[in-house]
């Protein structure tokens, strides 16, 4: 057949985010079809007790059936998201003046349980705050998230994957959003984007969803013991870290559109 040698070009952007010490050394690499990969030696892999995020990667438009799809990787945590919509909705679920947003989160192993239900609700509330549902009344927008691997900061990774998938599907939004997780350990040190080991040993784990226009707080989900000032400190650190995430979104999307 004619199209044997042609693959659908997918945009894979990998940006290594340096620590927020201000170095700002951002190197990008492109995945070609032959999967040639350049190893980047420096980077933020040694994570000191400062504020640093793990390695990010994002791939869009990788699934053929959903209207929009994205895969977001944060360190070793990886989530795949698919968005269907605006599509038909059952009469029992339709809302007369806006779109019905549904989020389905599937864990890596086993059946979805109560924890997944509660995360689905958090993600749905965040998406509802951002998606312009009034432009598509009596329709449904469904976000399906599949956990591919969980190594800490899962909720934040789900939020990021959902945002990229909604952008890929062309759902009208009033802003972008991102998720950032902070962990406070027993002596009050703040760690951004914790691994599962750091989350287990932490005294408190806080996840925030922030919007891209003014870094306002859209959703917060916290677990553990922390003081008021610590909450403000974590929020400020998350807002600073969200800048990196939004810059990464911008570069990833610019690369995608530069191919056409």
């Amino acid at each position, binding site marked *: 057949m*004619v199209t044997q040698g*042609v693959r*659908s070009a997918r945009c894979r952007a990998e940006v290594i985010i340096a620590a927020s010490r201000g170095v700002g050394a951002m190197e990008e690499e492109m995945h070609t079809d032959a999967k040639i990969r350049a190893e980047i030696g420096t980077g933020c892999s040694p994570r000191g007790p400062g504020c640093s995020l793990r390695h990010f990667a994002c791939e869009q438009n990788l699934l053929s059936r959903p209207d929009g799809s994205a895969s977001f990787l944060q360190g070793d945590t990886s989530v795949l998201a698919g968005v269907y*919509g605006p*599509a038909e909705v059952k009469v029992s679920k339709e809302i007369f003046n806006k779109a019905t947003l549904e989020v389905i989160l599937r864990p890596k192993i086993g059946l979805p349980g109560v924890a997944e239900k509660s995360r689905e609700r958090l993600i749905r509330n965040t998406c509802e705050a951002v998606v*312009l549902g009034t432009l598509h009344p009596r329709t449904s927008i469904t976000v399906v998230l599949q956990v591919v691997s969980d190594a800490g900061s899962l909720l934040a990774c789900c939020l990021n994957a959902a945002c990229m998938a909604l952008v890929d599907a*062309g759902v009208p939004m*009033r802003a972008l959003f991102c998720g950032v997780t902070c962990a406070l350990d027993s002596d009050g040190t703040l760690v951004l984007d914790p691994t599962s080991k750091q989350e287990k040993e932490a005294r408190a784990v806080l996840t925030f969803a922030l919007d891209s226009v003014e870094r306002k707080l859209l959703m917060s989900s916290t677990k553990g013991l922390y003081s008021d000032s610590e909450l403000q400190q974590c929020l400020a650190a998350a807002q600073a870290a969200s800048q990196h995430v939004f810059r990464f979104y911008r570069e990833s999307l610019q690369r995608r559109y530069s191919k056409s």
Partner: protein
Amino acid sequence: MAGPVSVAAEYLAGSRARAARTVLGQVVLPGEELLLPEQEDAEGPGGAGERPLSLNAGARSRVRVVCGPGLRRCGDRLLVTKCGRLRHKEPGSGSGGGVYWVDSQQKRYVPVKGDHVIGIVTAKSGDIFKVDVGGSEPASLSYLSFEGATKRNRPNVQVGDLIYGQFVVANKDMEPEMVCIDSCGRANGMGVIGQDGLLFKVTLGLIRKLLAPDCEIIQEVGKLYPLEIVFGMNGRIWVKAKTIQQTLILANILEACEHMTSDQRKQIFSRLAES
């Protein structure tokens, strides 16, 4: 703490609105605000640089622009709601600032009035057909909306047929309605699409690219084999050539066009023309 203060300054710098003119052709993200160009002051009839006296000294009037897909009006600014490249078209004649829109890549179709689409008949209920156009609701098509159809002379449309028609009613609050005649009552190419052929789906951006006035792809494809082709703005293409193999080759080429550069395409066409 110095941290939050310096960070706060950066936020404000980042969320500053940019003039729409400076962002043309660049990728814009949802949430960005764009400033509209301001109207230039017209000179008075005296010609000596007289300015018209305005009651509201502060505000300067802005040019009237049309807000296209992907943009929403937000006060006196434009809010970007979809990710894509910002485009602008100058007004043909008359006043006004033209049209601004965002060119985005999408797979899902949302019905728009006046669009020509290919639909599949899914149900026949009484006097109307329900046609699936790929949107959130099936569109309704009355049996009288065909050329030469009367109450006694019904058109021959069965469930599963392909229909090429245009929307007369398509907004977010009502069920979309389509017809197969134009405003003069003539079919003008619309109606039931014939037997055989292949219907396949592509992205909306590719359809717009193929239907652009100076698209070379269609000319090149036409030189390869004799073919019949129908483009629906809902991402559906119907293609028919002499043999099944040729039809499949054409379908594959059109699907792959999205991701190929023009050199790769020319290579493939020349290889096919030889064989």
